[in-house]
């Protein structure tokens, strides 16, 4: 029986073979030259197949993204429960992003995940993740990180022992590139540089990981600042991009959006805290899924009136304020509009192959994914 870590290693070796075939990226001078001739799709090919580019990316573990909760435990951090509110209380760091979501896999396994990104004045970032899991799960995760990295001295956080690992080190400079004169100074250039540390610990049935490209002393200092706080303190620490009054934000997002008969808005009021973009995706996804499912059912039953109603309703989606605003931050609106066009057209979308709306919409828009 293979461990999850062994699976990941096998898959990474497969990815390594693929990226090993990568041609050199186009040089800046080529791009600049071509940019004067926009009709030309690309510069002359630089790559020689078989001359594989060296794979320099460290093969690192992905800890929380893949696993089930481990041991079937639910409890406080489980799908029906809540995580304790945890903050890094350090005046030099502030929360720049927060997202929390939960759901259930087709295997029946539940997951519950929260992720807080902190940013320091100099631009450094760390992520603090919370996932449901037992000791067995934590041991497995630590083993995975340890196989990729260097075990360092243990530490403590929240009264629990913390396993600290240096698991990625880059030869790239850790210093942000100085901006050109007159350019804005907050360009993030240090991503992927420096040393990447992971610190993992468990309290109850919640596994914590603090990771980021920082100095070891900095990481250890932050561990000492991880604190359980009140709901009020936690919400006050959230950036403006995370709406803390979910109900009124959902109502605002739904203004002017047609919803099908029987659409239930109440479940949208009760979801997890997340940033405006992800909440927008959840709200518009719920509406789009409802309309598209109406279209699917109506098409199958030959109810052209209901099908046309769904098409007309979704046709307004390009004017939904929330989707229009979200375009700047990601491609969720395009995903919705792809299905808008599909139901108004031949009922198909192109994935890796031609897919019907009925077979693909739940996956693409997360129609059956909690949060």
């Amino acid at each position, binding site marked *: 029986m*293979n461990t999850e870590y*062994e*699976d*990941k290693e096998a*898959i990474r070796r*497969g*990815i390594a*073979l*693929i*990226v090993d*075939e*990568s*041609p050199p*990226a*186009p040089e800046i001078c080529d*791009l*600049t030259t*071509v940019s004067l001739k926009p009709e030309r*799709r*690309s510069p002359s*090919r*630089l*790559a020689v*197949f078989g001359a594989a*580019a060296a794979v*320099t*990316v460290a093969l690192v573990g992905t800890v929380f*993204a*893949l696993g089930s909760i481990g041991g079937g435990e639910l409890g406080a951090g489980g799908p029906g429960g809540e995580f304790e509110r945890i903050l890094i209380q350090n005046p030099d760091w502030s929360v720049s992003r927060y*997202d929390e*979501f939960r759901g259930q*896999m*087709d295997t029946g396994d539940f997951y519950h*995940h929260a*992720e807080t990104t902190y940013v320091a004045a100099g631009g450094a970032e760390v*992520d603090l*993740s919370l996932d449901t899991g037992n000791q067995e799960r934590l041991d497995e995760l630590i083993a995975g990180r340890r196989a990729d990295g260097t075990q360092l001295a243990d530490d403590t956080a929240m009264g629990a022992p913390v396993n600290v690992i240096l698991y990625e080190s880059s030869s790239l400079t850790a210093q942000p*590139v100085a*901006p*050109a004169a007159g350019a804005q100074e907050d*360009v993030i*250039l240090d*991503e*992927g540089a420096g040393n990447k540390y992971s610190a993992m610990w468990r309290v109850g049935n919640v596994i914590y990981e603090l990771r980021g490209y920082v100095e070891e002393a900095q990481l250890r200092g932050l561990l000492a600042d991880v604190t359980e706080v009140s709901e009020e303190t936690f919400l006050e620490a959230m950036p403006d991009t995370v709406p803390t009054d979910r109900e009124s934000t959902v109502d605002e997002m739904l203004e002017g959006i047609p919803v099908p008969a029987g659409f239930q808005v109440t479940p949208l009021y009760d979801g997890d805290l997340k940033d405006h973009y*992800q909440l927008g*995706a959840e709200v518009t996804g719920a509406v789009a899924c409802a309309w598209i499912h109406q279209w699917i059912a109506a098409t199958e039953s030959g109810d052209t009136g209901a099908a046309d109603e769904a098409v007309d309703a979704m046709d307004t989606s390009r004017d939904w304020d929330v989707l229009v605003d979200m375009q700047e*931050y*990601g*491609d*969720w609106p395009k*995903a919705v509009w792809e299905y808008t066009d599909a139901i108004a057209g031949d009922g198909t979308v*192109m*994935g*890796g*192959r031609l897919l019907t709306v009925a077979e693909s919409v739940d*996956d*693409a828009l*997360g129609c059956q*994914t909690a*949060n």
Partner: protein
Amino acid sequence: MEPVDEAIYTKLKDDLIRYATTLVGPDEAEDVLSSVILRVLNRKRLSDLEEPKPYLFRAVLNESRNVLRRRRPIADMRDAVEDTHNHDWAVARAIRELPPRQRAAIYLVYWEDMTIVQTARAMGARPGTVKRYVHMARKTLRGVLDEHGI
């Protein structure tokens, strides 16, 4: 190109070309990346992007999907040089045959070491959906690993 834009591109280009190669194969990866960068530069400076990396990863995914729409089937890359008895190549082949979004998700999570939320931002998807993509991809690849006794 402005110096700061050059610095951003230089910093990210290797990550982007690997991502494009994973999505469309080595033959068209360079075209994908060139098209993306030129299109972005025609509209704005890279330094004007709030988060250049996820933005450009999203753009590469979108352009790759355009390429894949024009080219089917997708599993025609580098087959000639593969050693079909090599387990790692079997996994590589299976990764190439995943639906593009699953392939993107598993690459970003496994190779780029992005969290689910970071991956969601880089794909323009919801975190729960990304979780499902990764889960489905792993399930498929687990089947390949089983076939090869790995």
